[in-house]
């Protein structure tokens, strides 16, 4: 999943980025309004952490921009405000932000809110998605089969999680590559690697006796078939 951190305080920006990296997000950062504007214009994010007072402009303008985009309902926005800025929070929620956090906040709170907005966004009730006995844990960053944890690399976990969240939808290889490596993907260079990763995942799943849930859609990408148990 891809996240954008818009925060002008460099230290907090880095801290947020690291937190999101731990949550297995692919992260872009912006320290000012124009940089954020560039990112929002060109990329689609699953999550945006948005500080409102930015050098070069107001964060609410960025929120409007996100909401004007197509498919923008897919982007969860959490506004970061200083304590007391009630007007901003209200205006933010009115403009379509999914949640807000008052600074200073503790990282576990941020984590919980991120999980909450993602559950809402992907219309799931739990932090665990289980299909055909295979579970992807959003909070523990783990994959398990019938209660037994499976060994997966970070990239394999990210791929599985993305397919689980978008179950029964065909996801193109480019979209998968962008979810793993963000805007740094180098087209063909990374597309071949998606195939290799998927091969590895399938091998691991088969070895653990997991039924074949992943369908290769010829010339397009992959699809996870099945319904939540």
């Amino acid at each position, binding site marked *: 999943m891809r996240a954008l951190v818009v925060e002008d305080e460099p230290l907090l920006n880095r801290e947020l980025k690291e937190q999101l990296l731990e949550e297995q997000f692919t992260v872009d950062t912006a320290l000012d309004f124009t940089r954020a504007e*560039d990112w929002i214009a060109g990329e689609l994010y699953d999550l945006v952490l948005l500080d409102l007072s930015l050098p070069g402009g107001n964060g609410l303008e960025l929120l409007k921009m996100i909401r004007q985009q197509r498919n923008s309902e897919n982007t969860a926005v959490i506004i970061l405000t200083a304590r007391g800025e009630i007007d901003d929070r209200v205006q933010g929620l009115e403009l379509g932000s999914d949640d807000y956090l008052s600074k200073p906040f503790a990282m576990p709170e941020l984590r919980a809110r991120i999980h909450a907005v993602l559950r809402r966004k992907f219309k799931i009730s739990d932090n665990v998605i289980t299909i055909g006995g295979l579970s992807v844990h959003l909070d523990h960053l783990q994959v398990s089969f019938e209660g037994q944890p499976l060994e997966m690399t970070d990239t394999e976990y990210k791929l599985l999680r993305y397919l689980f969240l978008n179950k029964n939808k065909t996801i193109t290889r*480019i979209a998968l590559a962008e979810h793993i*490596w963000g*805007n740094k993907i*180098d087209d063909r260079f990374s597309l071949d690697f998606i195939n290799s990763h998927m091969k590895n995942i399938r091998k691991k799943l088969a070895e653990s006796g997991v039924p074949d849930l992943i369908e290769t859609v010829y010339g397009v990408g992959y699809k996870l078939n099945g319904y939540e148990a």
Partner: protein
Amino acid sequence: MKLNNKILISNAVLSLFMLLITGFGMYYVVNTTIFNELDSHLLQHKQDIQKQVLEDPSTLEEIVILGGLGSYEWIEINVYDESIPQNSNHFSTVDTIRYPDTSEVSEAYRKLKTTLTVGGEPHLLEIYEEVAAWEKISMTVLLSVLGALFLWVILLYVVNQFVFGRVLSPFYDTVERLEQISSPAQVGEPFPEPNTYEIRVLNRALNTMLSQIKSSFEDQKKFIQNASHELLTPLSIIRQKAEKMLSRPEKMDRKSLRRLNEIQHTAVRLTRLSNALLLISRVENRQYEMKDEICIAEVTKQVLTELRDFIELKGLTIGENYSDEITITGNRELIHSALYNIIQNAIKFSPEGAAVDISIEDGESGPAFSVRDEGTGIPEDMIDQVFDRFKKGEKLSGDTYSSPGLGLSIVQSICELHGFPCKAENNAVKGVTVSIFF
């Protein structure tokens, strides 16, 4: 050669040439005057003698004796031998020894050879007059005049050097500043307007031209930035539409799927290109703060973590040689981006299972970061352009999708902003080494 030296030297050469001409001219004029004078003197003498022997032919003997005694001139009277016509005058300059018994040194004499009629009988008359004394005088005059003129030329050279230096100094200031300008970004203060008309005109013209170039350069950079930004939104719409159609592939035949895939790939490539242009123009427009303390080894490790997937899947061996701690001041995001691009290129062009060596050390040419791969290398005729925007080494790979593109241009503009030189060179055996010097 500098303009003032050129003027000074051509002046001096011309003066010396004139001096020589004048010298020869003067020598000729003085000598001609002297000889004319001598000749008329000799003629007068002859007339005196003629007059005397006409009045009294018996004095001839006396004249011959006395004529031989003159210290600067002497007279010889011989029998007429018809070697010259009667009553004709022949002037000539001869080198002769007057007293062959006592002297061996010949001297120059002006000689008048003519005839003398004594009592109806023609005689041969030769009158000699010494020239040497006159020549000495003329030489002395000539040398002293030439010496004075030569001194004058030297003095003029020295004085001119000083005067030209002063007069031309605003011109040289302009030239010196122009020499330091290598890009429109370096145009600083306008050129001053000195009181010399030509230089003022020159500087004014330069000011107008440079400010126009600078502003159009700025406009161009801003345009690239705005245009790349404006491209992003429509591109993202194309991508999303394609993505949406591709998520229902069962409704399409294979041909349409393939075409749609190509549309999506192209849109992604254009997005990356716009992103790269945007980054380069932001760097060139100096929109980044440069006050982070950055540990190069730390950033390198981060980059390697991000690229871990590619390294593992290609089975590359990464050699990490961080022998020295290098910390710089700059922009963390940009330095990260530069190192990322260099390492990513190395990975991309490495064959499977090859080695990529990264070193951070304070070597002979100062602290440096360098990445060495075992790929195909860069064709020699491309190696100087490898950092130039859009001049990619197309021969590097037949696959246009994975050409180095703007990666190294990004590296170069970031290095330029930080003032770090960077270079790429082919290794002796195979592959390329790309380095940044801090």
